[in-house]
């Protein structure tokens, strides 16, 4: 009747369910390498594709946790802009680069802590809470330098943005480190497992004795910390703090996560979802740029791909439900 009665089918289906989504970016890379001129060049892969992934990818590592726990955060773009701005302002006031970066990161984490507190303790819906902080923090970013962007002239910061290490620019190494650390955090630690448990059923997790409020606050603090990091890395690349930057980042990040297979309703998420989602988005964007697809069409295509991905996900979920009824 369904998969359970056909073991051979189950095997194939399981491989598809587990790794199927990962094969999509690989396939895309192969096709693009053959079909799209210049795609496979080192310059394109490292600079255009690689660097375009960093901001979204770094923040997505944190958003993964928020989504896995059944929440999300709209303030990430504002926090990134704020952190970049704060870093620029502090350096312009003569603070050493390392201290400025540390302080900007701390400030970002504090914003996340407040977000988490409002959501977990005051029990305000995450949509509303982070919609508010998105605007408040954006306002703070503007206030830091009267709404003007501010150049950063500091060699250490420039190195964070542009230095080459083992043939790759620094931001790509930062992204790789984030994927590694947060992958380990989600899959190998009690904190990661508890995050998924809260997303799977918050009330059950609470009654089973998990300190759900603490865990949620921690998740939002980490996510904001990553948003700040992404903002600082991006500012370092451009050697500019810009309060108008990173608008719409939250939507790109959530899209990337969902595209890769993270469940919007919580409980399901893995680091490879982030990698896959980020790659699919990045490759599509890169190919469209190389093919000089007009911007207006790029929106249509990106939106359609996201829609297709969630429809496929829904279909997969329904199929699993049916398996349950049969079993």
């Amino acid at each position: 009747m369904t998969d359970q009665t056909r073991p051979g089918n189950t095997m194939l289906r399981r491989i598809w369910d587990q790794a199927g989504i990962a094969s999509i970016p690989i396939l895309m890379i192969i096709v693009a390498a053959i079909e799209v001129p210049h795609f496979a060049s080192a310059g394109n892969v490292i600079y255009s594709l690689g660097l375009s992934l960093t901001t979204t990818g770094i923040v997505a590592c944190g958003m993964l946790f928020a989504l896995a726990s059944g929440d999300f955060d709209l303030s990430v773009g504002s926090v990134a802009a704020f952190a970049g701005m704060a870093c620029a302002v502090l350096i312009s006031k003569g603070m050493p680069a390392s201290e400025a970066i540390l302080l900007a990161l701390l400030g970002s984490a504090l914003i996340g802590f407040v977000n988490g507190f409002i959501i977990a303790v005051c029990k305000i819906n995450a949509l509303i809470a982070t919609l508010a902080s998105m605007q408040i923090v954006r306002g703070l970013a503007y206030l830091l330098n009267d709404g003007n962007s501010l150049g950063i002239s500091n060699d250490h910061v420039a190195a964070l943005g542009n230095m080459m290490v083992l043939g790759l620019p620094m931001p790509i190494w930062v992204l790789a480190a984030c994927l590694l650390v947060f992958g380990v955090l989600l899959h190998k630690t009690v904190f990661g497992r508890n995050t998924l448990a809260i997303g799977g059923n918050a009330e059950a997790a609470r009654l089973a004795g998990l300190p759900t409020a603490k865990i949620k606050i921690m998740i939002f603090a980490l996510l904001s910390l990553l948003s700040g990091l992404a903002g600082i890395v991006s500012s370092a690349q451009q050697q500019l703090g810009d309060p108008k930057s990173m608008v719409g980042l939250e939507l790109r990040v959530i899209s990337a996560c969902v595209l890769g297979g993270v469940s919007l309703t919580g409980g399901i998420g893995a680091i490879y979802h982030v990698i896959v989602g980020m790659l699919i988005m990045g490759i599509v964007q890169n190919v469209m740029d190389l093919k000089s697809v007009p911007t207006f069409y790029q929106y249509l295509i990106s939106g359609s791909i996201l829609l297709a991905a969630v429809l496929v996900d829904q279909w997969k979920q329904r199929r699993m439900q049916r398996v349950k009824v049969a079993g």
Partner: protein
Amino acid sequence: MALALEFSGISKAFPGVQALSDVSFSASSHQVHAVMGENGAGKSTLLKVLSGDNRPDSGTLRLDGKDVRFRNTHEALQSGIAVIYQELQLVPDLTVAENVFLGEMPSKWGLTSFAKMKRETARILEWMGETIRPDARLGSLSIAQRQMVEIAKALSHDAKIIAFDEPTSSLGSKEVDRLFHVLDQLKKQGKVMLYVSHRMDEILKVCDAATVLRDGKHVKSFDHLDGVTADQLVELMVGRVVNTEASYRTREIGEVVMTVQDLVGPGLSSPVSFDLHKGEILGFFGLVGAGRTELMKLLAGAEKATGGTVTLLGNELKRGNPTDRLNAGIGICPEDRKKEAIIPVASVQDNLNLGVRSRFSRMKFWINNARERENASAQSQRFGVRAAGLDALMRGLSGGNQQKVVLGRVLGHSLHVILLDEPTRGIDVGAKEEIHNHIRALAEQGVATIVVSGEMPEILSLCDRILVMSEGRISGELTHEQASQVTLLEYALPTGN
């Protein structure tokens, strides 16, 4: 006599339970017909069959001698049937008139005719003797007034048959009198009324006829209630013979483990005090809504108590959360398995390690997969969980196996007190017996156990002592020897106002 409403051989099964089997009885117009039975007797299902919410597996419903078949509640309403549930089905943000006409507002050229709506509503309410304004926002009304609006809604549909599900459960005595007055009016109009209630005094006062259900079967119908006593009705409600003595085992009961003193909190109407002993199985019996689940939530730290103390092994516990209570040694298996106990998208192993995981971790941080696996396989073997494997997703398991996983998880902690809220609800007979044996084994190991249940046989075959709750307070205490189905129900039934 005009048999306005007739149930004929109605049967309805849900997975694992025969909710109604071959129920036949009829109700005539100009009468209020009581439908009685204890928890799970089939009253709710019967009302749902009447309202078109559930379609019967077999049997027919007859209105004025004609067979009717409803595919949904709308069709039932069109045929003149209105069911007024305990939780009223009204929209608080709309006005009284809009609620009365919700679903079929009168309109003219596509525009809703608010004037007509108000006029009609005012007329109906006036006939009922109510002074509610048609344009008042429903949310601003009292519960009793909302109920009147619900009745008005039924009348606006020209309902010939009106069924009430526990209509007085949240009313004061004055409000009850008003409701009875309206029932009298409706009776004079020739309506057929079904009246589901646990309150014997009310039934004997307002009802003209009665039907008693038990375990989904029709037990007896009375054409009139002259000379019928409450005792008689109670006996019919419980009359089933179950050999609970055979499965009950006497146990060694030790010293006091937990003392609850004057505990007050949401869901309790007066302070609760009791002791719990080592190795004892203490039962909490009561009808739905008696406050048992709320009490367990207070003990488990899931709700905040507003007063009173809980003392465990001589130490007074501070008002805490579930984490603190678990660390102190009190664990709960919640009542609503799906909503409160399991993580459907996680594996059996993950579910078994939920909340105990950090005990197996390295430095309280790194997951120790080998030890988690060990714990999961030990607990699932201990309780005989049948699943495709420890990596199988929880949502694929049957209710009984899910319950065993939840039990296994809670017992991963070293507990002094375990709170089991409806441990076998919705579970088939075989699995039920297995779980009962596990509960007995736990008690014999010295764990102090509380079993909350609305099923008398479960309570009688497990518990050494039983506290009966009714309307948010403890209404009686019975030893195993004193307890019988009749005594349990006598304490559990609300005493009225």
